[in-house]
């Protein structure tokens, strides 16, 4: 099957579980990953870094910039 035909056989992200499974059963793990990437949604606020010692709280962008700055200082001091 060429690439265009493969795309044509792809289910819609809104397809039912049974429809998606019927397709998944005929393709490889790699093909399913391609489908997943093609239909990927952008990152959300709950998909950002958590720093050790923060009690599991997502770090704010400002905290992360400070973290990077501290790491830069550490590297400058020789690691």
């Amino acid at each position, binding site marked *: 099957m060429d690439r265009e035909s493969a795309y044509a056989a792809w*289910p819609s*992200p809104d397809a039912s*579980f049974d429809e*998606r*499974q019927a*397709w*998944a059963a005929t393709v490889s*793990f*790699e093909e*399913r*990953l391609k*489908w*997943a*990437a093609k*239909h*990927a*949604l*952008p*990152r*959300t*606020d*709950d*998909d*950002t*870094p*958590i*720093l*050790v010692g*923060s009690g*599991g709280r997502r*770090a704010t*962008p400002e905290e*992360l*910039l400070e*973290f*990077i700055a501290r*790491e*830069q200082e*550490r*590297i400058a001091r020789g*690691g």
Partner: protein
Amino acid sequence: MIDALARHEVQYVIVGGWAAIQHGAVRRTDDLDICPEWSRANLDRLGAALRELDAELAISPGKTVPVPVIDGVLLSRMQIGTWQTRAGGFDILRGIPKTATSEARFEELSARATTAEISGRKIRVADLEDVVRSKRIADRPKDHEALPELDKLREAAAAARPRDAAFPSPPSQQLHQPPSPSTQPQPYRPRKGQQTHPLERVEERSLPELLPLARDYCEFNGVDPSDNELLALFRALIADPTHGGVQFLARDGDGRPVGFASLFWTWSTWATGRIGILGDLYVAPQARGTGIGEALIEACRTECRAHGARGLTWSTAKGNVRARALYERVGARSRVDWIDYWLDT
């Protein structure tokens, strides 16, 4: 990304969306989520892979910033690191939720992981149960969205499980059953940058150095045989290596003895031939994580081949997750449904 991880010989288990997809889910994701082995050496290798992929830290939706140096120390300070690379999103997790207050890390996930293949490379993927549990506890909208499909896949997997898996034949009928050719583990190769350790076969002159290690090993196992009893055992092996077994002594870079392994010979009807039993494997605490355990196992495996033995078998405590991770790394397979018995004579 998988190629970069392989080139840098990073130890990890795939979790998250990719793991769900490997287990049959059809769901949207562009991120590779991994739980790496959390040692400094492994995180340094992971840092090198990230640098090769031009990774930038994703600090908020749609915004990434470059990080001057990505090394193991930096990675170890992030419980979750979300990165954007030229090959896609790449999230590094110290562990995945196991309960509301604890996480399952590499060692635990690795013990239950399955092996899959992508672009000709073998990868380790977290068990579906681990993936589902982590999403249930993480409790984000996207996790809620994924759960109905994952629950259906769990049900389908349970229904498809062979009936005899629930009623296994007695251990005595399975003992030492050799692996099928399709699942033969690959030979162990030291990781890049890992030291190769000179090992020596134990002889009479090695005994003064072996004995203190054996004493530490016995103490670790809660037993206290006398020195004479231990020396008698070692000398019995030295006297009859063809039928009894052999021992190997490992040294560190300064020549100090830091580990040993005992290989005993027996026979197996299932393997239709001689097999080796890894009776003892011990590495001194200060030398752990340096590849000595792997080197000792490989020495025993090589000796098995030279001796015509069909396989190498051993037991370990279920809770010894560090040792179990090592055994997984060298390609050994566990028999989780079996129970070891012991009868005093």
